[in-house]
């Protein structure tokens, strides 16, 4: 059975490979993105050496790493699920002897692997050549970061799955998917690290899962999280992964009872 799920990863990876040319332009655009934020932050720092505990050098690395991590964990599972629901193919898939949601997760992972190898890594190399990014030298930090990155992917995909499943209840969840995308980008810390948020907002963020997607792993990678706190930060990611399973389970259960297919 596990073999079948692994095949879903493999097939998605190969499918993505067929469209790889699109991703080369993506790397350039991500580099421009990182460049724009690099200059934006440099202007924000101005004469100041340190802001919200970040030095300019740390900020540059943070921006680069966060955007490139986004290149890895980003996927359109929400849209795929919503489309399956709208055109009714979800009904066929439910009759098959595998878990629909787990298959989606696997396909997302196949896409993630593709993005890691053909987007994130080459992109990171290019960005490091252009901008003054300082990567950690301790192999341990890299190991921890990779594991945390995996959880970034899991948590982001869970949020996507949850958003996609809402198509069961609102028929057309285009607006919701857009809303989710902006929320994830801002609250996960890609655009502004959580440390910059004003007090009350930072407190709210601590109780939401978004920071586990970008802010926590990027903070560990840039060395802003002291060694003694790393275990706790990683634990928080694991907790969110487990906690998010609950609403997904309930939504999925409620959704299956509600399914009605529109045309098709």
């Amino acid at each position: 059975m596990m073999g079948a799920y692994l095949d879903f990863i493999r097939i998605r990876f190969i499918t993505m490979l067929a469209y790889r040319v699109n991703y080369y332009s993506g790397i350039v655009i991500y580099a421009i993105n990182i460049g724009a934020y690099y200059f934006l932050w440099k202007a924000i720092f101005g004469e100041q050496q340190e802001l919200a505990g970040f030095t300019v050098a740390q900020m540059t690395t943070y921006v680069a790493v966060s955007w490139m991590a986004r290149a890895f964990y980003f996927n359109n599972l929400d849209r795929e699920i919503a489309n399956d629901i709208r055109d009714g193919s979800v009904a066929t898939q439910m009759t098959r002897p595998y878990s629909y949601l787990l298959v989606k997760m696997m396909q997302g992972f196949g896409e993630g692997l593709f993005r890691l190898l053909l987007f994130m890594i080459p992109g990171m190399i290019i960005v490091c050549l252009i901008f003054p990014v300082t990567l950690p030298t301790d192999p341990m930090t890299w190991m921890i970061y990779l594991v945390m990155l995996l959880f970034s992917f899991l948590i982001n995909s869970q949020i996507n799955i949850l958003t996609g499943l809402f198509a069961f209840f609102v028929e057309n969840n285009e607006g919701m998917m857009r809303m989710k995308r902006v929320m994830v980008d801002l609250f996960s810390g890609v655009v502004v690290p959580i440390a910059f948020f004003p007090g009350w907002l930072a407190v709210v963020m601590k109780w939401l899962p978004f920071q586990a997607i970008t802010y926590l792993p990027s903070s560990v990678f840039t060395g802003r999280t002291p060694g003694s706190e790393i275990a706790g930060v990683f634990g928080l990611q694991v907790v969110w992964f487990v906690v998010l399973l609950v609403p997904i389970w309930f939504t999925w259960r409620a959704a299956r009872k509600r399914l009605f297919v529109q045309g098709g």
Partner: protein
Amino acid sequence: MLYAQLFWEYIKNYAKTRLTYRMDFWIEILSDMMFQFMNLIFILIVFRHTPSLGGWSEAEVVFVYGFFMIPYGIFSTFFSIWNFSERYIVKGEMDRILTRPAHNLFQVLLENVDPPSLIGSVVGAIIMFVCWGELGLPFHIMDIVLLAVFVIGAVLVYAGIYTALSAISFYSDAPTGIVPLIYNIQNYGRYPVNIYNKMIRFVLTWLLPFAFVGVIPASYFLEKKADDLSQLALLTPVVGLVFFTLGLLLWNHGVKRYRGAGS
């Protein structure tokens, strides 16, 4: 005349479709507001840590943002063709469009018209108005005329770029992932472009002229800065016309090349 009539029919059709998905209609408006609010949050957060951004004050940057929202709302209403490639090329709906006498781009645009986005324009105008007072800027009757001209120019810039991007799908077989990526770049035209290095500034001014939908025309109304952007402001309608013409030419050429999905 035919086009005006078609326009009206499509709008009626739109209203009927939307009334089927009433809940989604409100969520979309809410998500639009959220989206704009998020970008504002970014500006507000940033200015808690610095008094100025490349010589621009908070109220000025927010003013630019308010201006930007006006053309952006109009553009989103009439040009929401984000999934053109997917819907019209991959699924072959373009064939249906081409069998009809009205101009194909006009039909595609009308099928995707999205009036709720106009609310963003209203909010933008309010933001701009408030900042106008806060900055104590002088007000002339001419400003309203210029504002209208700039807004039209900015909408044309957007329209040109996105028409060209959508037209790419006529040339390449694979669904292109480029539109969502360009989508990110458009944000940077809202910030004072003098903070960027020469290359990004050049791209934002002349290649993907997103600076012409935000900071350049808006700077016309603001106090003059060291490297004066407002000199370029009057070029906004020209850049708009040039880019829209280029977009349209690329589109028309693409349609000629189009061979159908064969499904």
